[in-house]
């Protein structure tokens, strides 16, 4: 069973995240970058499937040079090798364009299963699995809180409000996971050391056979026209409960015509 896990390096949502006014893109270079949180669950799920079925887990990421941190995390958890697509021309690409790059990279890999996180914290678009399913003609098994792979069929419980849908498809398929699917393991010291020796292949657009005219901000399918910091809320009212806290709260609601 060959599994490819997609990971994304994103600005840490715990730090201040910014847009770059020079070109209206997400300021990635200046940020503290981390592995997209939900991707850790995707990596874990890939490892669980590999441990049950045998095979190999390859990590794939598109990102600038600093994205090696995300790769290293996945390798130290137990992934076997990595492919890092890095090319100056990709900067400022939108989701549609990135999906073209990822699809080309996947086209050069052998896989039975592609696993990724359901949503990235920077854009919160939650569309990459759908874009890739469309481009590659793969069944889309997105939004999983549970995955079982058995006899060439992948079955998920797709999280919904108040329950789930049982969805299944023959392999190869693309699965995306929520954080309800498992508990990601912490890399062991041994795993961290072993990661340093695992093969990481770097590829450029030329290696993928993707024309530079398809990517980059100038060729994007959407453009940010402008942006502004949201005006901060004014100072709110704070009261300490001395037996009257509830009353004051309800009075506030009445003032807002809510009760």
């Amino acid at each position, binding site marked *: 069973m060959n599994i490819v896990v997609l990971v994304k390096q994103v600005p840490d*949502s715990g730090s201040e*995240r910014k*847009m770059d006014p020079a070109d209206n893109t997400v300021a990635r270079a200046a940020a503290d970058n981390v592995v997209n*949180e*939900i991707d850790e669950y995707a990596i874990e799920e890939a490892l669980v499937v590999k441990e049950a079925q045998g095979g190999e887990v390859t990590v794939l990421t598109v990102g600038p040079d600093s994205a090696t941190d995300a790769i290293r995390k996945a390798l130290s958890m137990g992934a076997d090798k990595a492919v890092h697509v890095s090319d100056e021309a990709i900067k400022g690409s939108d989701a*549609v364009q990135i999906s073209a790059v990822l699809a080309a990279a996947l086209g050069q890999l052998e896989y039975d299963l592609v696993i990724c996180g359901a949503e990235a914290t920077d*854009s*919160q*678009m*939650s*569309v990459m*699995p*759908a874009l890739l399913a*469309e*481009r590659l*003609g*793969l069944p*889309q*098994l*997105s*939004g999983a809180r549970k995955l079982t792979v058995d006899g060439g069929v992948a079955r998920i419980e*797709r999280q*919904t*409000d*108040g*329950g789930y*849908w*049982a*969805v*299944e*498809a*023959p392999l190869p*398929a693309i699965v995306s996971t*929520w*954080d309800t699917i498992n508990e990601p393991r912490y890399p062991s010291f041994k795993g961290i050391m072993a990661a340093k020796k695992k093969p990481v292949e770097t590829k450029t657009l030329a290696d993928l056979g993707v024309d530079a005219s398809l990517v980059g901000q100038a060729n*994007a*399918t*959407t453009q*940010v*026209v402008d*942006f*502004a*910091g*949201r005006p901060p*809320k004014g100072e*709110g*009212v*704070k*009261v*300490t*409960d001395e037996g009257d*806290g*509830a009353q004051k*709260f*309800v009075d*506030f*609601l009445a003032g*807002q015509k*809510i*009760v």
Partner: protein
Amino acid sequence: MAEVLVLAELNPAGGGVRKTTLEALTAARAIGEPSAVVIAAPGTAAGVKDALAEYGAATVYVAEAPEIDEFLVAPKAEVLAQLVQEKSPAAVVIPSSPEGKEVAARLAIKIGSGFLTDVTEIAADGTATQVAFAGQVIVHSKVTAGTPIYTLRGNSVTPEPAAGAGAEQAVSVSVSDAAKLAKVTDRVVEQKSSRPELTEASIVVSGGRGVASAENFSIIEGLADSLGAAVGASRAAVDSGFYPHSFQVGQTGKTVSPQLYVAVGISGAIQHRAGMQTSKTIVAINKDPEAPIFELADFGVIGDLNTVVPQATEQITARK
């Protein structure tokens, strides 16, 4: 006037049109004349046509086939693409939901267009407003390739009725084999709730770690019910097993933007704020005066939620 296609989002099991569809019809009117598109299992359109017309649909395209419900997302995207290619609309507006965004994404690839997700407003010239980084940055964006596709965030636009002709037009459905790969074999409801849905509710009452137990969440529910509100939970509360994940508000849960958000026993970490920061009015109840949530709150009570919340519920109920 230019035609704008609006994909109707429906409640399951013949439950009618979702409020998000009425919001989308309203938003679409800024850029053209909306036509509603119903892509669903056979027999669905009859029950929703009138509601769609009431909110401005000039035409109601009806594309019904059993495959729509039998396979995940792909058939809907395929049928919508066929309709877009046939009708050449000025734009497509889809309510933002996990499925809505996936349909928009697949449609974008099929028709070679760009798409913008979770927009809160669409201007007459097609510029859309989005909110980024946990509500900290407001962005204006445009689609620069093909037919603009927007997914509209729930609770951002107030639905306004506007009588439309609602002329029904049947659309022939042909679903390719490629769209019939991910089969839906079951739909399981685990919690039936009579409360409003989180992303649609105008009031949300959320509980955090401070609620301290699953049993004690009943006081959160009590306050919510007195206000006709939806119930939410912080990640800490969900991870501790106090409340189910489908009610989680925050970075790895739902994003809500209600008129009123009441955060009870929630410290206000950035991961939570990401999910509720754009709520119009925010109230916080927490015994820790230093809790970051108070920085966001229009009104805050420093106190024990176990006293304040039941008292408030009683007083609100008494006022009714």
